[in-house]
């Protein structure tokens, strides 16, 4: 099967790759661009470990074909920090121990950033339902929710 040439922007960088029409955006990020921050936990859009934004829309990159990224803008966990400075969410996740094994963390960070970009003042319930597509098996979510609520409060104060 002949490959498709894709030009896209990932974390602000213009990139190109060739992909099989069947390959997902997640496959392309991981295997062709060496961006292994997004994880494949299920491949069926149930766990959210592969969450990225595509033109500012939160998606499971395992449910998007690589070819669909043509001409679009993709943001992954690798693009969250600015230079040496971690994004406030990243900082708070470490501080609150909002991660144990860390496999779901990239997806949860990307998903949460997308939430706070839309809604800087979410209730706890809104955070819990927004993250209902991001599975974490280690933490019981308690420390994740606390880290997010505290980050949101800090960001509101700073703005």
């Amino acid at each position, binding site marked *: 099967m002949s490959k498709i040439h894709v030009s896209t922007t990932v974390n602000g960088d213009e990139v190109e790759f060739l992909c099989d029409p069947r390959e997902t955006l997640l496959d392309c990020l*991981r295997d062709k661009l060496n961006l292994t921050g997004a994880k494949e936990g299920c491949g069926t859009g149930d766990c959210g470990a592969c969450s990225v934004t595509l033109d500012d829309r939160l998606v499971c990159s395992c449910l998007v074909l690589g070819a669909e990224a043509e001409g679009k803008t993709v943001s992954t966990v*690798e693009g969250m920090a600015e230079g040496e400075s971690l994004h406030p969410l990243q900082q708070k996740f470490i501080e609150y121990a909002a991660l144990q*094994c860390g*496999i779901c963390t990239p997806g949860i960070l990307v998903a949460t950033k997308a939430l706070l970009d839309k809604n800087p003042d979410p209730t706890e319930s809104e955070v819990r339902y927004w993250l209902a597509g991001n599975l974490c098996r280690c933490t019981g979510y308690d420390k994740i929710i606390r880290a997010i609520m505290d980050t949101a409060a800090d960001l509101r104060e700073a703005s």
Partner: protein
Amino acid sequence: MALDEPKTTDFKYVGTRPDRPDGFDKVTGRAKFGADMSAPGMLHAAILRSPHAHARILSIDTSEAEAMKGVKAVVTRADFSKNVPFESGLSGEFWNILENVMAGEKALYDGHAVAAVAATSALDARDALKLIKVDYEVLPHVTDVDAAMASGAPVLRKGAADSSVPEGLHPNVVRYHESGHGDVEAGFTAADLVIEDSFVTEATHQGYIEPHACLATLGSDGKGELWCTTQGHWHAQKVCAALLDLETSQLRVTASEIGGGFGGKTTVFIEPVALALARKANRSVKLVMNRSEVFRATGPTSSTSMDIKIGMTKDGKITAAKGVFCLQGGAFPGAPCDESAMCAFAPYNLENVLQVGYDVMSNRPKQAAYRAPGSPMAAFAVESVIDELCKKLNLDPIDIRLKNAAHTGSKSSFGPRFDAIGLVETLEAAKAHPHYSAPLKPGQGRGISCGFWFNHGGETAVSLALSEDGTAQISVGTPDIGGSRASMALMAAEELGIPYDHIRCTIADTATLGYNEISHGSRVTYASGLATIKAARDAVEKLCKRAAAKWGIPEEAVKWQDGFAVPSGPNAGDFDPIPLKDLTADMGATGGPIVGHFEASPEGAGVSFATHLVDAEVDPETGKTEILRYTVVQDAGKAIHPTYVEGQYQGGAAQGIGWALNEEYIYGDDGRLQNAGFLDYRIPLASDLPMIDTVIIEVPNPGHPYGVRGVGETSICPPLAAIANAVSAASGVRLRQLPMSPPRIVAALKNQSNG
């Protein structure tokens, strides 16, 4: 192990809550998990799996797959060792693993591996699987534990039963356990009320979000490299070497960051397959499971069928307890029927107790450890009956547990007397907690349960090397599954007297240290922690020697205090204390590198108890249960990093909530797993759970220098029962089958109203 009295006070670093050393990598996406590693010229592999629950493999034709463009190797059972002997029970564990990793004469469950392919791309490998022709003769199958024990059930494999099994039982019963003391029949006669009930629980999966993944390199020279996500890379090394006829030391195994294990990554599934493909293709091979494979072929717990009988006097004294625990362990021996039996009544100080366990094979995947294997199900059954007794006798459930509680020095239900334990303290803290007295609304109910786990020590090797600038690097051999690198660094900081930030802890590969047992049995903070403390003390002794030489006084005249070598007393001489970094700065000239070691099998892992409180509300129309409030009270012995201890408590509770309410393996009549994905096997979501409160009790374990007890597993023991008791209180019906899914609750309510 003889130890001095544990240090329990005046900690400078232990008990603080610094950031974890792996945090930065994990929030930036640069942490390398199993599937994140690649090698030059690497191939991708895929595994062909049986669609049948039980079938004889008549032939496998791989020729078309081998001829496909891009395919570099195909393996079947013929490519693995022929020198692994079949033996009964757990004696044949290497054979059991081999047979599980790649089917031999029969496919034993839906998802059993039968062949594998390595190709230049993952898509090609997957396509090539379709070209492999397997001729199966489908056989009758059995997936239910009671059915598998019944006469006439299909026999999975003759000769698998070990000598513990009494005569006359079905060949699928492969191990038997019996323990206890006293006279249970006399005890039941002395009771004012005896309740006898039966319980069943379905298999659940550990549900780690990271599927199994590895990268293997192996040449015909017998030397190999393996990178894999595992809880125990020395174990992986040993097993892979045996299954592929390699010398153990010639295979170096490196553990990746591990994306959750919970017991499910204590064995190997794909690693020997990737190595066999790598050897055949003479190329590196990456093999990653998809989620469906994870559900069908790895993990799950045993399903169980249990009969419990408990007698109680009117004033709440338990007079006798008896339990029969039948555990279905998949197509191989190893279901933790002995652990179920031994944990079941462990929280209670009983005069008369008898517990029996059966390990039963069926056409399901080989069960794997899941957090306190066997204990949560047993607690579900036992603590449900105790709850019923309390209700019928109108007794307070905490008071009754306190009245019968095991305590320091009491004889355990499984034999030995307990050393220092903290069950009573957890019950008292639960009773005093505002949660216990908070008002409930109509339709809501409160449940309570105790839980027990043994904890474990095991083979452990640690080395601690000092650097010239006065910092330290620790090499440990237990993969970090819950923040243990931070805990190790805290304990080393305490001993060395240097700041936490000056210590880096690394999970060493198999070439770097002696054998380290798997990260299981809640052993890491206990055993690797003990080893780290001992290694640090070994380094300190060497530091003191260097100081003694500088001062020209005997070694015994130097002691270590808060990061400094100081004269041990006025008679030792009057010298200025020397800080650690001044001793390491010129260590090359004063005797060479300073490295502390510890290698042993610590045996003082203190057992651990927990008490959980939970409030639930049941919607009688839909049968949906909402968890309103949850409090975990557990004895940690000593919390090295309290935040991570809380994390273990919360994680165990959350997994228990899933097990109690939703999670189950569903098999069709055809013996195939019907819900092999996260959509249909639903683990708790953020929107399903409340905050989970924690109370850390610290009753020091005399077997650890700081009193540490493992905390990872006990937290999943009480939730199933606590929630069942809350559901019963909320809805008025007693569910004796897990999970308590909405349809089951609706059916139970309907049955009750029909009388």
